[in-house]
């Protein structure tokens, strides 16, 4: 590892780790964004977001097995997941009423158990592969970067830009931010909070399904495969601040990069220890997260 040649190899290696870290981070960021959108609009921490996305993944792979184009299958996955989300919200979250932060969280845990079990019994627990949208590598200098990682980063960036556009440039987005800031005032001026809630759930789950379709090619497909990225997305949104959409993305990216660095340079077995210790340390210094506002609630 000495001499100029060794340094180049190390730099290439670092570049690879960073690209793969940003790609993972983009996935966590998308999931986190979905969680934050739902949380801001309805005060629900949606633990079922990835279980429902898993359902979408299996729908996609079924379509794909029937010979449907991969892009169409992914769109189907997103649509099915979003629809499932709206159904869950109408059927089991809405009856709970407003402000049931903890009950709602536990209900989504129940939904998650059921969704995973349904996937188990319909499609079985046998791991399968999930096809990439693209294959091969892209050469950049001496490094060969996986095309799927670059595509992941690209798609996630487009999706995030679309969300940013929705929230900052459209009236619907303003209405969603209004509900997030004060549900009471939104009600007084006549915003239909239920409609906003449904849109938020559909959007949040669509983002999670997209993230899942980008994650699955690397991990393969099994009923609980999305548990790990969900926990890292949680770490990301806590890091970024539970109520901040920018925070969710930046937190997710930080977690993704840290995790890949830890896996490559520290120990692959302690990647979560590394990520979570970092998150907890940051929170001890800044309890509201990097971008969050200080509104604490004890249940």
């Amino acid at each position: 590892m000495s001499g100029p040649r060794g340094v180049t190899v190390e730099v290439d290696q670092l570049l690879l780790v960073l690209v793969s870290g940003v790609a993972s981070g983009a996935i966590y960021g998308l999931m986190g964004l979905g969680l934050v959108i739902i949380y801001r609009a309805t005060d629900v921490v949606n633990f079922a977001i990835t279980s429902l996305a898993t359902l979408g993944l299996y729908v996609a792979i079924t379509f794909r097995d029937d010979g449907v184009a991969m892009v169409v299958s992914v769109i189907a996955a997103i649509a099915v997941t979003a629809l499932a989300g709206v159904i869950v919200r109408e059927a089991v979250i809405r009856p709970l009423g407003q402000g049931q932060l903890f009950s709602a969280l536990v209900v989504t845990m129940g939904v998650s158990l059921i969704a995973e079990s349904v996937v188990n019994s319909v499609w079985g627990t046998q791991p399968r592969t999930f096809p990439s949208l693209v294959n091969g590598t892209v050469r950049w200098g001496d490094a060969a970067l996986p095309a799927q990682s670059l595509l992941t980063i690209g798609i996630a960036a487009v999706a995030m830009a679309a969300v940013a556009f929705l929230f900052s440039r459209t009236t619907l987005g303003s209405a969603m931010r209004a509900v997030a800031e004060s549900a009471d005032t939104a009600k007084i001026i006549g915003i239909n909070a239920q409609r906003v809630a449904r849109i938020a759930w559909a959007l949040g789950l669509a983002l999670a399904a997209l993230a899942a379709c980008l994650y699955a090619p690397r991990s393969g497909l099994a009923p609980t495969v999305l548990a790990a990225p969900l926990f890292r997305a949680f770490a990301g949104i806590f890091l970024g601040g539970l109520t901040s959409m920018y925070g969710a993305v930046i937190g997710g990216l930080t977690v993704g990069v840290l995790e890949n660095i830890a896996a490559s340079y520290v120990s692959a077995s302690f990647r979560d220890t590394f990520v979570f210790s970092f998150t907890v340390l940051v929170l001890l210094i800044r309890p509201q997260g990097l971008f969050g506002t200080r509104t604490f609630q004890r249940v």
Partner: protein
Amino acid sequence: MVFTRSNLAKASLGPVVGLVLIALMHSAAIPAYQAYSVALAAVYAIVVLSVGLLAGWSGVWSVGHPAFFAVGAYFAAYGSGHQWPLELAILGAVASSGLLGAFLGYAGARFSVLYIALLTLAFSLVSLEVINRWTSVTGGDQGVVVSQLDSALGLGSIPSGGSEAQYLAVLAAGVVFAIAVFAKSTALRMRLVAAKAHPLVARSVGIAPEAQTALSFAVSAAFTGFAGVLLGLITGFVSPDTFSLNLGVTIIAACVFGGVGSVVGAVVGGVYLAWAPTVADAVSVPQPVVQGVLLITVLIFLPGGVVPFVGALSRRSLRMRGPRVVDGEHHVSAAPADSGDGASAAPATDRPATADRAPLLVVDGLSVRFGGLNALEGASLAVRPGEVLAIIGPNGAGKTTLVNVVSGLIGGARISGAVDYAGAKLTGTRATARRRLGIGRTFQHAEIFSELTVVENVLCTRRRVSVADRTQADELLARTGLADVADRYPAELPFGLQKRLDLARAMAEEPKLLIMDEPFGGLDATERRLTAQQIVRLRAQGTAVVIIDHVLDDLFAVADRVVAFDFGKPIGSGDPGAILQDPQVRSSYLGSIATRAELPARGDDTVAIAVRDVGHHYGGVAALHGVDLDIGKGAVIGVVGANGAGKSTLGRIIHGSLRPSSGQVRVGEHYGRPFRGSLVPEGRALFKTLSLRENLEVAGYAAGIRGSDLRARLDETAEWLPERLRGRLSVAAAGLSGGEQQILAVARALMARPDVLILDEPALGLAPALVDEVYARINQLARDGMTIVLLEQLLSRALTSCHQVVVLHEGRVAARGEASDPSFAESAELAYFGGEAASLLNTRDVSELEA
């Protein structure tokens, strides 16, 4: 910890049931394959109890308990491999779990519930990684065998997987439950629950929440570690799969299922955990589906869990013959269980001579700033022992800020000036310490601890509860007429009794200074009389009492001296009978505006909105009674009243965003469609993070306008805004001054093109020049033909800017008339201060209360 007969009996139930189960297992009445499940249920029940009581008492939800469970199990495995005695394995497990738990509790105490969940989740994930790597002790994912543990104390040898291990688990669970039952009656638990339910109020009774989280987390973790040792012993094999995150989720499910914070609920939860797989098999549905469906069903239909639900059912049926529980309206049977001395409370003429005693509380030049807002500016006053000082003043005068400074419940403010109590400086003393100095406090909305019974609410002010304390508490409850409901939960009581409890809690340690925030608000005449009696009695005992309230006649009947506040400082003081004669005090309530605004002539007598016999109550608190009001098209109607008179409630009912509890609101029609109302809420309620344009846009969106129509409407409304706002449409609303925010709030309401505009105290918190500007704009709208309902605190302003004025007093229409009628002004003034009562103020004496 108090050993009373009832909790001894309850506690002994645990070990007794344990022994019975052991006997049944031993005699094979419970077959061997079931005996294992029983033991497993016992172990799980300990874990569920640890997690559930931590959540129920401290409000801390942990998903990290599988890690403590694992610590215990691996201690059993390691101990059995290294010939440790049983006791050492248990000690090691309990000590290390306890230490880890204390650390987590300490680190997590400053976080909200979701963050603690993440912290414990992280802890779980990290321990799983450690378990998988530390193969020399844990065997990695291959697992490790537990053979047997011998007792050093001569309890024999416990081979793993055998009956002895099962008996041990069942008996241990019984003992743990007995401990939990005793813990339930300790002051520690009451203080934990109090701190969880209402951290701020808990400080006012001397409880500091932070330190207790670490302690309770440590104890909970230690018990789970102990359960882990038992698990190792009964299964004989330990592998990481057992302690997955799924277990953490399932334990929480079991807690919620049985009932959080309930000891019996934990048993139900443990049984559910141990048998859920069997049940799922029996109905041939996958186990997670059974769990998920059960969980969702319980949360939606029995939000408190199974056991509390059954408990409440049985309590209700037991109480059918008991005293009637009044829900909704708060009519209390006239005779409270007064213990005699109430009737002989010191008559007013025998007031202790207070003038010669040194003041107990002296406030000198006190100023409080919140950001750019001056809540108090150089306020000074003094109270002597045995004196009742009333503080009055309009909304926003700084009254609540003042009492919060004295009770130490103020944060994020810059405070200057001196507050001396009993000759020593009070500023800088922690809120929790002020209780010990003898400062008690009651709250406007009776902030009592809803998860504690009535008697526990009074007891939790003490660190340890002795038998004498209980007797004293019982006496206090008898004195305040709460003895009959001592073991009930506050939510089952009408609001009047809740306020009595709030007062009883404040009086529990016989404070030298009692601060009361609106003690009469929301009470009916009987309750108000009882409250007044309590205050008179406290004064007779030499307590200094400071009261702020808007119910002036009751207040003046008990007060020795009245200080009137406005704009953050005293503007006058004097005898209750004389204070309202002070012109400055008068005008702080009524205003002093002389010039009438030019109003449009009214020709059309179409009624836009008709309110008929409308009443409303929030929970048990009545806000409006039998209000009738016709809002004619093109009219400007003023609804005037002091704070709490029911203005905002009426406004929201007229607007249609609040459904009245009784009566009806008829909305007329014109141009073939109903009249549209828009509300400008009190305090503006803008979306502060949204820009000016977005605030308007969102209102248009809410009114169902889209696309180019919305843009056109936006441009039109922007034209209405003053020039200095029109140029700043993309600035966030938080950056506007108060007056600008008010104008924007009106513009936002105009986006829906309303026919009727309802304005809730548009002048609140604005400087006089800005008030004039806002009112000029409102007047312009009226002249352009808008129908306006103006909810106002200042009578004179309503009289000068409205066609008609309605005066509300305690939720009733006390006067109504044409604003231009000069004779109406006087009757409206009387009505404002309390109708007939106000005219009697000069002649009225406290002795009337005692009659």
